[in-house]
């Protein structure tokens, strides 16, 4: 599979995001599949950032470390990114005093990199633009090197700046100047990327948008949140879509409130959603415990970033699995789900809402910074694929009349009892956070307490039976090397499977969407069918791996772990494979 990789490096605030949007949309319009993500520090302006776009005529899932083109918007971009351009690649920059940087030319020559300088800032100024428009000049040059027509790029720019007509004119001129610059191609002879044979129907979407859209499709009517990276953009998208959908979006005074408001709204029968990151979730855990006790649905998204404490606010991690499984005091059943890409965000959030209603407890959805923000071209989301399921919620007026208060927390075989909305029927019940009997009346009698705790814990078995098994990607058995993982690891492994296939190495991968209660049947079979099974996880301990190795006779041959804030790239996996197969 041919893949071309572009990286734009500069200070936060230099317009990396708009370049990313324009390029991604232009490529998408030309029929390419695109994956794009950015790395940035927790600052608004200043501090070094980069944005990467990988594109291909075939579907791709993750970013590659092998960079073909770098646009350096500032000095650090020029100095630091020299090392990541692959031999034969191109480094475009507009840093006037580049000759003052020691050994720059020599380093480029040694590494076989084509370095092209364009006085981008001066050119932008001469067109009446600002220094921020240097990016457009350099982008124009890049476009020429890619061997593309200017038209799709111009269309992209027109879309991006549609409501800023004055800027748009200058931006277009800047791009044209860059495109037709006299500076030449620095010896670069032409990019080699397959041309798309058709333009697939795709949308360019990130995980947080997908979660928002999935929630709306699932009938979520209220969104409560307190801003925290990398979950904050869900608040932005929810608010953006509120007017069309009638959603109630409330930024609460803290995470505790957001969770409490959600459980209060769910108790009253609507569907509410909450999203936060690990630190905010810590504050919500008492509410998760309450949802377990009063058997009320609650769905919380944890957008993971590395901790502990404030950790790395704008980087990625898979380190809150233990938190999601073990949070909240006391023993109660819950569901933990891990999303991996926009499509799974869109679908799994709908299932999460359904499971919360069906099992009347908390559902925790784990996402990661890289999933939240990575823009991917995917087929347009379908509607009506996942019907709304509300479990034992009683809404039929006749049935409501027959209810007894003790139906609410009735001790049943599968742990599930009827639920109805306060006000919907004349039979009231007590939603009691204290231990209680079937009608919610407090009890401290040993036998009654035992029976009620056991009733709620029975749901673990009921949920485990209802959850789908993990999915095998690639061959079912006999792979040269196998991986087991969850979350965004899937994307890097999928690309590695394809990459290794081209090299004649069979790789397969067992992916867990549903992480708790833990499914073991397919897993155990996977270990039987494959002899060289490894763990891939974005944390130090191998949290999923430890769950698996706690089972009898399941031992990994090795663990590919990473906890530096970076998501796995395809090469992280392919390099590991070349060492272990």
């Amino acid at each position: 599979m041919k893949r071309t990789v572009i990286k734009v490096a500069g200070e936060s605030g230099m317009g990396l995001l708009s370049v990313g949007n324009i390029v991604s949309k232009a490529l998408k319009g030309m029929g390419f599949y695109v994956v794009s993500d950015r790395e940035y520090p927790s600052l608004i302006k200043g501090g070094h950032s980069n944005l990467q776009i990988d594109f291909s005529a075939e579907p791709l899932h993750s970013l590659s470390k092998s960079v073909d083109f770098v646009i350096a918007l500032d000095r650090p971009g020029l100095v630091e990114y020299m090392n990541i351009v692959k031999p034969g690649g191109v480094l475009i920059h507009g840093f006037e005093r580049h000759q003052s940087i020691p050994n720059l030319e020599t380093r480029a020559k040694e590494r076989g990199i084509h370095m092209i300088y364009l006085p981008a800032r001066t050119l932008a100024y001469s067109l009446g633009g600002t220094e921020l428009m240097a990016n457009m000049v350099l982008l124009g040059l890049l476009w020429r090197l890619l061997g593309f027509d200017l038209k799709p790029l111009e269309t992209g720019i027109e879309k991006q700046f549609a409501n800023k007509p004055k800027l748009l004119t200058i931006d277009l001129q800047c791009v044209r100047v860059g495109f037709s610059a006299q500076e030449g191609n620095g010896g670069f002879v032409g990019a080699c990327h397959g041309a798309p044979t058709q333009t697939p129907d795709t949308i360019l979407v990130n995980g947080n948008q997908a979660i928002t859209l999935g929630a709306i499709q699932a009938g979520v009517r209220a969104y409560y949140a307190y801003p925290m990276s990398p979950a904050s953009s869900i608040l932005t998208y929810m608010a953006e879509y509120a007017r069309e959908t009638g959603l109630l979006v409330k930024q609460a005074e803290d995470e505790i409130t957001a969770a409490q408001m959600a459980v209060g709204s769910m108790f009253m029968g609507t569907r509410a959603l909450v999203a936060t990151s690990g630190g905010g979730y810590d504050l919500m855990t008492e509410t998760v415990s309450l949802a377990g006790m009063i058997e009320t649905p609650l769905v919380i998204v944890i957008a993971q970033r590395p901790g502990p404490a404030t950790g790395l606010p704008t980087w990625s991690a898979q380190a809150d699995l233990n938190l999601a499984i073990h949070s909240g005091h006391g023993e109660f059943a819950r569901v933990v789900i891990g999303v991996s890409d926009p499509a799974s965000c869109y679908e799994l959030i709908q299932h999460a809402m359904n499971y919360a209603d069906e099992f009347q407890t908390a559902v925790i959805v784990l996402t990661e910074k890289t999933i939240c923000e990575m823009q991917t071209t995917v087929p347009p989301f379908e509607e009506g694929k996942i019907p709304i399921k509300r479990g034992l919620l009683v809404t039929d007026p006749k049935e409501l009349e027959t209810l007894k208060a003790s139906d609410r927390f009735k001790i049943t075989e599968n742990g599930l009892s009827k639920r109805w909305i306060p006000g919907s029927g004349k039979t009231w019940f007590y939603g009691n956070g204290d231990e209680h009997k079937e009608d919610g009346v407090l009890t401290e009698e040993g036998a009654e307490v035992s029976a009620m705790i056991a009733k709620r814990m029975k749901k673990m078995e009921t949920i485990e039976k209802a959850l789908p098994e993990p999915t095998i990607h690639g061959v079912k058995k006999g792979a040269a090397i196998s991986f087991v993982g969850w979350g965004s690891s899937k994307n890097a492994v999928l690309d590695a499977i394809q990459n290794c296939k081209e090299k004649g190495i069979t790789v397969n991968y067992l992916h867990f969407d549903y992480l708790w209660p833990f499914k073991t049947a397919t897993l155990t079979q996977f270990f039987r069918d494959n002899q060289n099974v490894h763990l891939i996880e974005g944390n130090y301990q191998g949290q999923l791996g430890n769950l698996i190795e706690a089972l009898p006779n399941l031992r990994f041959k090795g663990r590919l772990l990473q906890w530096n804030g970076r998501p796995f790239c395809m090469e992280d996996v392919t390099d590991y494979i070349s060492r272990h197969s």
Partner: protein
Amino acid sequence: MSCPNNQSSYLRELAAKKKDFMAYESTEVMTWCSGCGDYGIQKALERALVLEGIKPHETLLCFDIGCNGNGADKINGYTLHGLHGRVVSVAAGACLANPKIKVIAEGGDGGTFSEGINHLVHSVRSNYPMVFILHNNENYGLTIGQASALTRKGQAMNGTPDGVVLQPMNTCQFVLGLNPTFVARGFSSDVKHMTEIIRAGLRHKGFAFIEIMQLCPTFNKVTSAKWFWDRVRYTDQQKNYDPTNLKRAREASEDLEKEIMLGVLYQDKSRPSFPELFESRKGITTSLSEEVRPYSIKELIKNLK
């Protein structure tokens, strides 16, 4: 009774609705101490609900943790007994989901003015359509008598045997400083007066903050019933008391030692309640609870194409 209002019409009205009143009466055994102010507050709440024509299944009563919360299953009706300090937030979520059901939250001075004070502040600001009843017995009763932020200075408590060294907060002054829309104060021994202010709170369309000065004969020996009866005054007996005058309300609420003013201290009927402020909810007459169905995303993904 220092409140000289004629009781007869109130009792007649109640007697006519005896059946409705009995619908709220639970057969569960009460666990409050003898002489606890919670009995009076519960009766006043039941009477207010009955007199306002609200049936047990038409309201959601939310309880915080503490002595008052132990009454969560001692009154008939839908109840939600949540977590310490959080009752205002869980009740806010409930009332936003379905404003057609009257949501009433009750909490003590410990949970409300220590652990949950941020929730109170922002609920007052947000003007959620709900009633909040503060049970102010000036201590943490259920954890056996520790000082709260409302315990009087110098009082020896569990954990502060040499006496509380800090000044107590003045609840109504604090809330009046937040630009509220409804602030009232009652006394747990004056059931009729409490009934009146709770009724006014139930009729208020935004966030109704009602403080009840509550007796705690077990842990609070200083402010006894006599102590209160000697000091309580009523706004409706003041000359020209104007509950729409915020400055006047702040003055009236200030004294907690000599003359303690009871009544609806302040009300602003003009301000919209929280759900009315939402651009996204304009013109929608259904409640969020009635709206759970799939919503089309086709239009929303158009600009992602």
